[in-house]
C-alpha cells in the first residue's frame, strides 16, 4: 500500500515501513549520514541525518523515523545544515586524521567527504581524542581506534550481516571503545576475518592491512576497480578487484552483488594475491630427453602437445585420449575442452573435477 508525504515541498509516495531517510534517498535527497549502512538496522547514533519534521519540537533522525501519511519534512534548512556542521566539527575534532587512504576500506572516505562538503577546515572545538590503537598482529585487520567515531557499524555488521558477534563495545560515553570479547586479539575471538567491519567503517579506523601493505599509502588516489566474481566456492560473490599500475592491491565486496549483497569471507576478501605470486608459470614447459621440464616457446610447446595427441590417436585409437575440464576456469574453457574431445575424437571421453 502506498501513502503520500511531502519532502522539501514536493509530494512523494512511500510504502508502509519505509523510513524518512529511505524515502528521501529514493527521491535523490542528499542527506548526510555516518552511522548508516543500508544493509543494517537503523541505529540513530550520529544524528547527521536529522531533518525538520512539521509538528515536531526538535529535529528527528530520518534513519530511525518511519514515514507516516501526511508528514511534512524539510531535509536541508539553514538550521538543520548548521546543526550538521557543528556535529561534524565535533566528530572531526576527535580524530587523529580524517584524510585516509581509500585502500583502508570500501567506506573509509565517508567522513572526509562530509568534512569537505561542509567546508570544515580545522575546528574551534578542542578536547579529548578518540580511543587508542589496539596492537593486534593479525595480517588482515588494522584496529586504529584513534579514528573511531563510535558509529557501531562494525559491531552491527558483524552481528546482523555476518552473524558472528565477534565485535563488542566497552565503556560508555567518551570512553566508548570498540573491542572484542575480553579485549583480546581478533584471532582469539569469534572473528572469521571476513573483513565486513573494514568495509563498513566510515573513517578507516578498521582498515585493510593487506591492501595498505600492497600499495603505497602516500598516494590517496582511488585505485581502479574491475567488477568480477570471487574465484573460490560456488556461491559466486561479486567483488571489485582494486588495481594500481597493473597490481592487484585489494578487494572490495560488491554491495549490489546478486549472490552476496556486500558479504564476503576471508578467502574472497584476502586470498587474492596467488594471482601475482612469483610461483606463477610464465612460460610453457616441455619435458626434455633428460627427463626434466624445460622452458620453451608457445610454438614448440603447442606443437609438442598436438603431436603427442596425434601419435597416441594414430597408434592407440580415438578411445585412448581423455580430457578433464576445470571447475575453476570459465565456461568457455570447459565448453572447448568437451568440443576438443567430441569434435576431435568423436568420443564422450570428457569429465570435470566434480567427482572428487
Amino acid at each position: 500500500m502506498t501513502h503520500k508525504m511531502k519532502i522539501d515541498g514536493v509530494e512523494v509516495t512511500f510504502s508502509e515501513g519505509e523510513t524518512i531517510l529511505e524515502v528521501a534517498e529514493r527521491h535523490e535527497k542528499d542527506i548526510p549520514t555516518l552511522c548508516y549502512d543500508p544493509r543494517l538496522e537503523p541505529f540513530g547514533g550520529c544524528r547527521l541525518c536529522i531533518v525538520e519534521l512539521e509538528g515536531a519540537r526538535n529535529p528527528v533522525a530520518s534513519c530511525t523515523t518511519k514515514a507516516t501519511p501526511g508528514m511534512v519534512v524539510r531535509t536541508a534548512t539553514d538550521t538543520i545544515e548548521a546543526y550538521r556542521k557543528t556535529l561534524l566539527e565535533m566528530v572531526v575534532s576527535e580524530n587523529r586524521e580524517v584524510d585516509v587512504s581509500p585502500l583502508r576500506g570500501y567506506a573509509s572516505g565517508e567522513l572526509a567527504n562530509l568534512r569537505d562538503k561542509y567546508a570544515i577546515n580545522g575546528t574551534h572545538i578542542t578536547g579529548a581524542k578518540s580511543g587508542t590503537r589496539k596492537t593486534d598482529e593479525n595480517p588482515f585487520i588494522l584496529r586504529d581506534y584513534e579514528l573511531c567515531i563510535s558509529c557501531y557499524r562494525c559491531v552491527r555488521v558483524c552481528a546482523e550481516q555476518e552473524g558472528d558477534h565477534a565485535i563488542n563495545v566497552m565503556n560508555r560515553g567518551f570512553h566508548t571503545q570498540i573491542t572484542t570479547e575480553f579485549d583480546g586479539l581478533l584471532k582469539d575471538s569469534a572473528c572469521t576475518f571476513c573483513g565486513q567491519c573494514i568495509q563498513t567503517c566510515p573513517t578507516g579506523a578498521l582498515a585493510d592491512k593487506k591492501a595498505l601493505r600492497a600499495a603505497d599509502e602516500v598516494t590517496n588516489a582511488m585505485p581502479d576497480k574491475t567488477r568480477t566474481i570471487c574465484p573460490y566456492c560456488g556461491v559466486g560473490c561479486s567483488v571489485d578487484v582494486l588495481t594500481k599500475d597493473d597490481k592487484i592491491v585489494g578487494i572490495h565486496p560488491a554491495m549490489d552483488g546478486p549472490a552476496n549483497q556486500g558479504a564476503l569471507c576471508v578467502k574472497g576478501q584476502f586470498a587474492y594475491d596467488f594471482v601475482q605470486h612469483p610461483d606463477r608459470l610464465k612460460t610453457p614447459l616441455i619435458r626434455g630427453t633428460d627427463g626434466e621440464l624445460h622452458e620453451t616457446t608457445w610454438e614448440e610447446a603447442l606443437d609438442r602437445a598436438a603431436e603427442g595427441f596425434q601419435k597416441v590417436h594414430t597408434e592407440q585409437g580415438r578411445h585412448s585420449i581423455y580430457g578433464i575440464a576445470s571447475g575453476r576456469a570459465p565456461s568457455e574453457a570447459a565448453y572447448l575442452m568437451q568440443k576438443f574431445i567430441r569434435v576431435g575424437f568423436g568420443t564422450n571421453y570428457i569429465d570435470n573435477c566434480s567427482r572428487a
Partner: protein
Amino acid sequence: MSNPLVDMQKPDVIFCIGTNMTECHPVAATGLKKAIARGAKLIVADPRRIGLAEMSHLYLPLRVGSDTALLLGMAHVIAREGLIDEDFIEKRTTGFDEFFEHISQWTPEWAETITGVPAKDIETAAMWYGRANKGAIYYTLGITEHICGVENVQSLCNIALMTGNIGREGTGINPMRGQNNIQGAGDSGALPNNYPGFQSVTDPKYQAKFKTEYDREIDLEKGITKVTALELCGETIHAMLIDGENTLLSDPDREHCEHALRSLDHLVVVDLFLTETAELADVVLPATAWGETDGVCTNTERRIQRVRAAVPPPGVAKPDWWIICQIAQRLGFKGFDFNEPKPIFNELCRISPIYAGLDWDRIEEGGYQWPVPYKGHPGTPMLHEEEFVNGRGIFSNVHYRDPAETISDAFPVWLTTGRRLASYHTRTQTGRAEGIDYLLPEESLEVNPDDLERWELTDGEWCKMSSARGSINIKVKATNRSPRGTVFASFSFADVPVNLLTGSGYDPVTHTAELKVCPVRLEPL
C-alpha cells in the same frame, strides 16, 4: 540448488546435512544465520560438532556413512505421524504407496542402531521438518562423497516430496557447489553422459543434433568417468589433457593416481602453477588466472555471471580457451578459430536449451538463473515450481548400505575428510596468499580428547595414521568437534597428503569417491 540463495533467509525449518557451510560456503551461511535470528529452527546432521551444529536447535551426531538410515527413519516418522502433504503427493509424485509400504519397517529405533542418533531425536527432527510450512534442505559433499551418494540424495528427495517441501519459496533441496565454476563446467558439457546444456548423449534427438552441429559421428554411448579413465591409464587410456585440476592431491588414493598419470604416453596439463600434477606432465601450458581472464561462470544457484580481467598475466600465459584452440587447430579440428571468449560463450548458448535466451551481452549484470529457454525469458530462480523436468517426482525405495570399508581390529577408527575455512582445496591458491598461514599454518588431525589415552596419543604431538592403502604422519589436535571414535583432517596440505589413505570405494552410479569414510589406525610416533 532448487531455490535461489536469497531464499535461505526464508524457511521456518532448515535441515542441514553433510554440509560444513560456515567454513566451506561462509557467505551462504550468513543467510541461514539471518533465518535463525528471525526465528527459524535449524536441524544439523553431521558426524562432527561443526560450527553449524553449535548454532543448531537440534543436533544429530550420526556415525559417518549412515545418512540413508537416518533419512529412512525420518521418513518413517513423517508417514507415521501423518505429516505428509497428500495433495502434493497426489498431484506431483509417483510411487508413494510402495514407498509408504517400504518405510513402515525402518523405524527410528532401527535407525538409532545404525546411526547412533537417539530415536527420540530422529523423531523430533522428522516432526519439525514434517510440520514446517517452509522446510528447506541444504547439503554438500557429506551427502554425495559416499558409495551410497545416490541413495543419500534420493532419501532427501523422498522426505521433500512427502512433505511438499519443493517448488515453493523457502523450501527445496539445495546442494551447495564447491567451486566457482563447477556448475558451469557441467552446464558446458564437460561430462561423459551429457552434451552441453545437459542434453543426454544417449538420446537420439541430441545425437542427431550434435552430429550436425559438430559435423562428425560421435559415440552413441556414454563416455567413461574420470575415475574409470584413471583406472585405465596405461591400459587403454594413453593420453590426457587436464585443465586446471591438481588431480594428484584432490583425488582419492594418491599412489594409484600417481601411478596412473605416470603410465600415460602423453600428459598435457594447463594450469597456473607447477602443481604436483603438472610435475608429471610432458607439456605444461601456463594459463591466465582469475583476475586476468574474461569469461563466464555459473554459481551454485545457476546464476550466470561475467568474470573480468583486471590485470595482465605474467610472462606469456594465455587464456585456457586460447590454448585449447591452438592445440585443436594444429590437429586440424574444425570449429576452433576463436579470437575472443564472447563467440565461444554465444555458441554454448545457441546449442544449449537452458542458455537459449542468453548471450554474452545479456549476462553483463548477472541477472539470469538458468533455465532461460528463450530471449525475453526472465530466468528461473526456482526449479520445479509447476512440474518436475521428468513429469512427476519419483519416490525411491532405498536401502541402507554399509560403507565400502567398516572399522575393524586392524583399522578401528573412522577417518572423515573435508575442508577448512582459511584454505581452499589443495592450497595452490590460498597457500600462496599472504597472511593465510596466520590463521591456518598446518594440517592437524582432530581427535576427541577422550580418545587420546585409548590410542596412546598426545595433543600437539605427531602420530602415524594408516589405512588399507598407506600411511601418513600428522599432528594430533584434541577437540570436542570430533566425536569419540571418529577423527577428521582436510586434504589441503601437500605435506600431509590425506588422500594417500582414502579411496575405499565409489558410488556405482556417479563414481564419486567415498572421501567421507575411511577406516584408519592411529599410532604414536
